């Protein structure tokens, strides 16, 4: 089998297992209240980490400052103005595209 197909199959099986693990393991028993509360704090912790890595992450690890940051700032302004989600995303994309065009 070719290297490509081995990669596709192994990564695919591993990802399927990783995604299923949480729901299959936890549902065995209802978690106690403090564990449950910790689980409910996973979302803000992971979302914040995604904001950071998706706006600053480089192609090969490390930091990259590029027009994504300007786009994120525009999105934040839109959020402060209570804009709906679609407008927030559009403002971020348009700003990043503009900055990329003029720099």
């Amino acid at each position, binding site marked *: 089998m070719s290297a490509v197909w081995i990669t596709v199959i192994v990564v695919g099986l591993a990802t399927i297992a990783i995604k299923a693990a949480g729901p299959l393991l936890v549902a065995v028993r209802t978690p106690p209240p403090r564990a449950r509360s910790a689980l409910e704090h*996973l979302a803000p912790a992971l979302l914040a980490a995604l904001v950071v890595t998706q706006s600053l992450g480089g192609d090969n690890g490390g930091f990259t400052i590029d027009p994504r940051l300007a786009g994120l700032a525009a999105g934040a302004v839109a959020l402060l103005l209570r804009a709906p989600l679609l407008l927030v995303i559009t403002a971020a994309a348009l700003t990043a595209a503009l900055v990329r065009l003029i720099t």
Partner: protein
Amino acid sequence: MRRLPDAQPPEPARRGYLDGVRAAAPIGVAAVAFGVSFGVLARSAGMGRVAPVVMSLTTFGGSAQFAAASILGAGGGVVTAVVAAVLLNLRYGPIGLSTATALTGPWWQRALTAQLLVDESWAIAQRDDGRIDRHLLVGAGLLLLVGWTGGTAVGTFAGDLVADPESLGLDAAFPALFLALLWPQVGERSRLLAAVGGAAIALALMPFTGAGVPIVAASLACLVGARRS
């Protein structure tokens, strides 16, 4: 839609699968565009036409797929490609944990629903209390899966015809989406603390670890929720 009389207390809105599709539509455009660019990259990395599509359908995780394709294309070898991709997808461990209490039904149904988890579908399925709406997750996940896989197929066949998503600023759409979905969650002090902690852990690790590790480590910040309140 039927309007409730004003006197009644507001019921928590019941969301259906279609609401998830609708909520994911704007970010779905970006998913298609990046699916196309994954198809183009995978093709030029020598992955052929079928393998990239199979990968989009089964792995269904953009960053891991981009990493694997570019490593294979650079002649990096199977082990390096697999390790990088799996490391990037390890975050679906904690992400899956956070959905565990929301998924119902027999084990195979929960396992199948969990396959629709990607950063964006999971983010869209957030309720303001930090829990997950299963209907939103399924609707958003299916739309993104179709868009991402369809985009990949288009990319492997006709990639040269499509503009680079970065020139359209679509790479900035993702952090903005995550910020917008984080926003209503941090009104409560302990959740704000978890968010600040998660961001700080990710920032601190990014210069030293491969991509993927910072996000997994950031999930430790959820432990602020385990303190006795």
